[in-house]
């Protein structure tokens, strides 16, 4: 989940993006951006709003990340979901449900199911890490956005890549803020779109604090992430990213 979580928490750091705008360098840019992120730790508090035509649900959570491979998310509210959580180490994902006191490894058969009832699938969350190698990235155009340069990059998965999308289109500002991430099927029809609606500067970094995932064919169904607290380069205890910590919150 780590990479997508980083993305959801608006930590998509595209270092060097501003110094080059050549189309054939798009892949290089993404690689540098991800390399730049290695080793950084973060702590954040966020709410996730799941909206449906008949109901709406708000989940509050805390998340810890370390580099690209490790992250832990713990639900703090509502009460009935308190203490449940997800742990991600490399490509493996576990989820913990306090009511049954069990840690469950998310099998690949559940990868298409939604993450905590939201519009993000487990797959969305866990397996966005192959963004460099599995796609051919092309810089489509460069625009201006509130005084920043805005790069529009089209990513087309390789023939044998484990990606179902026909293409993905990312809009990234030169200060590394991801404004939009659209997923298209193989007929070029938009399936879902992640958009940023609020950008703030926290701890000296400019990041998107509110992002919404919207399914294209269902206008009334979306999931919105809002980060209220984000801290970088904090000290995270060694045992944070372990199954026993997932099971016994401290």
């Amino acid at each position, binding site marked *: 989940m780590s990479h997508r979580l980083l993305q959801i928490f608006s930590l998509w750091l595209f270092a060097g993006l501003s110094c080059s705008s050549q189309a054939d360098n798009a892949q290089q840019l993404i690689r540098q951006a991800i390399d730049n992120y290695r080793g950084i730790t973060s702590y954040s508090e966020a709410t996730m709003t799941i909206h449906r035509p008949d109901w709406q649900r708000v989940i509050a959570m805390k998340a810890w990340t370390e580099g690209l491979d490790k992250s832990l998310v713990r639900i703090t509210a509502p009460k009935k979901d308190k203490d449940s959580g997800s742990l991600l180490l490399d*490509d*493996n994902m576990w989820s913990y449900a306090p009511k049954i006191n069990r840690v469950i490894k998310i099998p*690949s*058969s559940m*990868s*298409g*199911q939604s993450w905590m009832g939201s519009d993000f699938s487990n*797959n969305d969350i866990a397996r966005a890490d192959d963004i460099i190698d599995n796609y051919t990235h092309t810089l489509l155009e460069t625009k201006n956005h509130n005084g920043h340069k805005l790069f529009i990059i089209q990513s087309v*998965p*390789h*023939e*044998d*890549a*484990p*990606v*179902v*999308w*026909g293409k993905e289109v990312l809009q990234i500002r030169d200060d590394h803020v991801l404004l939009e991430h659209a*997923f298209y*099927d*193989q007929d070029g029809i938009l*399936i879902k779109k992640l958009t940023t609606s609020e950008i703030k500067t926290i701890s000296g970094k400019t990041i998107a604090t509110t992002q919404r995932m919207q399914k294209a064919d269902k206008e009334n169904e979306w999931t919105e992430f809002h980060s209220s607290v984000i801290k970088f380069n904090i000290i995270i205890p060694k045992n944070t990213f372990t199954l026993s910590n997932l099971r016994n919150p401290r």
Partner: protein
Amino acid sequence: MNSFLLIFSLAWRNLWRNKRRTLVILLAIVLGVWAMIVTAAFMRGMIFQMLEDTVDNLAGHVQIHHSQYLDDPVINNSFDPDSHTISRITHDPRVLMWSDRIRLPAVVLSERETTGITMLGVNPARESKISFIGKSVVEGRFLNSSSDTGIVIGQALADKLETRLGKRIVLMSQDINNEIADRGFRIVGIYDAPLDPTEKAFVFVGKETAAKMVGLKGAISEIVLRLHDTDMVTPLVTEMDQLDHTIDVMSWLEVEPYLELMIQMMDTSMFIWYLIVFLAMAFGIINTLLMAVFERTREFGLFQALGQKPRFILFQVWLEAILMIIVGLLAGNFLSWISVMATGDGIDVSVFARGMEMINMSNIIPFVITFNDLMIANITVAVLGMLTGLYPAWRASRLVPADAITRI
């Protein structure tokens, strides 16, 4: 000899003294025999069809697995297809053809749907000969070679995934280190199997491509064999299963115990059905003959008074019953033969297609008449019919001449 001819002609003529009555009971026998044979042929055809489908549907006649594979069909339970044991089995003269497969549970993803399936990594040349897939690809093509990077999926699965020929889908499974192994495949072919569940359950990819995806080096999960003759299955399996305890050699009966059970159950229920039909027939026969005997009470009394022995009377009446049954059997068999011939390839039951698919049956059921079924039906009717004919005959022979003659 002469007396036999006399009794025979007496019996034959007596049979036709009351034409309508004899014809009615004859009709009952004919219809009974016809019902027995045609029902048997229909049931047999159903079993035959299920067997063919099973063998065709990837099961083959004999299957070879790692000894743990059927309990836990994971990648680690694979075996080396080049071992001495395996080549001895595949080179056995009784084996008509064989196909090796990497067979693993997997998950398939499209843009809109995710579902669990079984991934079959096959050698296309061998596989298309042994199973239904060789003649079932209706759109696109089957795989070209073991290292083909395309995928062939069923029509029903394509509909479920909301995808189609030419699009890419993603397969996910486990590799040899229990890590997630996944890969994108382009759909190069769509197949149409007789049954929807088959279409939704199996996808075909190249064996080498599958091996590369999950990190298998040369090992495979399954070999299926088709033999020259189904009778060779059990001896071959018994013999080959001794060779190597890490390898399981099984017949399709063991792999599909449900089918074997079904066959046994059908045999039993068939016999019960015969008895029921016969019971109805038997009352008709007894009743008709008793009536005929009753009508001829005076006649039998006269015969006896003129010196005919009771056993001749018994034999004559019994012969009437036997003749009736023989004629009925001949006509009944002929009628069944005609009706089976008339239906040709079988009965089209596609009106009930959905129901049939639920019990894993296809839409056309052929009539299959086996020698055994024919014999059982005929012998049941002949033997039991003769036994029932004995009772009226015995009654006729026990008449006291003085009483019989005076009775009006």
